[in-house]
């Protein structure tokens, strides 16, 4: 007759199993949250694909985000901008996402896009200065042309800003009043 520790562990089996289920549950929950509910990658009112537009059809960023090099904000294109191209694209007209777009156009409503890249109100950020400093859009926004749904890659927090300002030796780039207003 041998002595085994398994007998002693038997009462702990049930909690251990429950714990395992809980860990799996957490992992699946985190994955679902990240994919559908997080502010890093929110589900937009229309499943607009930057991959189709920017990569497959090679539309440059500033064709739609027209204010990026002249004003602080890059500008979300108006519905009329979308329609401007899509009215002459009968090949994709029957797709469900395009029908959604057409509905917005006919109801004369703006599309309630959810902002993914945002900075707090006490921060002054201008696209113009960064675009004119020859920064690629992808340096902050990540590989947008590969994304079907926009995901925020950078943290958009102060250490991330300051790191780049230090690295690139921006003039007075670390003075508080350069970015805080």
């Amino acid at each position, binding site marked *: 007759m041998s002595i085994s520790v398994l007998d002693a562990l038997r009462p702990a089996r049930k909690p251990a199993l429950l714990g395992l289920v809980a860990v799996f549950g957490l992992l699946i929950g985190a994955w679902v949250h990240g994919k559908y509910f997080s502010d890093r990658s929110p589900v937009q009112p229309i499943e607009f694909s930057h991959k189709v537009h920017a990569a497959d059809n090679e539309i440059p960023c500033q064709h739609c985000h027209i204010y990026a090099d002249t004003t602080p904000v890059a500008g979300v294109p108006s519905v009329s901008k979308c329609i401007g191209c899509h009215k002459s694209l009968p090949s994709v007209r029957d797709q469900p996402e395009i029908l959604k777009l057409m509905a917005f156009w006919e109801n004369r409503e703006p599309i309630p896009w959810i902002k993914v890249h945002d900075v*707090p*109100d*006490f921060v*002054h950020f*201008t696209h*113009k*200065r960064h675009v*004119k400093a020859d920064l690629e859009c992808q340096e902050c926004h990540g590989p947008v042309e590969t994304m079907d749904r926009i995901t925020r890659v950078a943290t958009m927090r102060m250490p991330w800003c300051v790191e780049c300002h230090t690295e690139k030796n921006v003039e*007075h780039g670390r*003075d*508080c*009043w*350069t970015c*805080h*207003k």
Partner: protein
Amino acid sequence: MKWGNDLSTFVEKFRQYLKPGYYDEFDYHWTMTIDLDRCTGCEACVVACQAENNLPIVGEKRYAQNREIKWIRIERYWEGEYPDVKMGFIPMLCQHCDAAPCEIACPVFATYHNQDGLNTQIYNRCIGTRTCAVYCPYEVRYFNWFTYTWDEPLEQQLNPDVTVREKGVMEKCTFCIQRIRLAKDNAKDDDRRRVRDGEVVPACVQSCPTEAMAFGDSNDPEAKVSKMMKDPRGYTVLEELNTTPSIVYLKKAHAES
């Protein structure tokens, strides 16, 4: 040899002690001159500042409790005895002192001197100890005792370039940093290193009907302020405290009777 090394490090340390990381020379040295001879006390500057910088209206009750917020205020004083009384005005705003007492006081460096000779106030860094307001001899720092709100249509007129401050934050005149920033931005677009004189106009200067105020870079000898500062009427408020303010007042001249 070793002694020499020790001595040089000691001298180095002593130099650092004398100048603890402050700027000696400023990139720009933003300066304002206020001609008291021209000031009529109309308070146009006060209103302009209120509109430009999202200042809250605190209401009658809180005004009585000395909790009003006015980055620039007109102080009124009287000279002479009854039959021969003269009224004087002095607009009082943050003096952006080069040796500012408030900067020494702040435990979190929410207020410090930047490379442009400006006395900064970083709202999201401020923890609201109010020490700076105690140290300020000019009484120009204001504390947000409450989070003030704007009634329905009025929030539309808030300036998007200026933060709306919250409860527990100190605030004061910034010399309209948003306008300075814009002027520098435009200068960069034109491939200019420097902002031209007269490109930065703070709200109070812009609104002054008698053009009593002038604003500019006193590092530039050709600037309007540099010339105004040399006026023999010029003086700085509370000069004896050695705060070296960036605002030069030009004395009200009286005719000898």
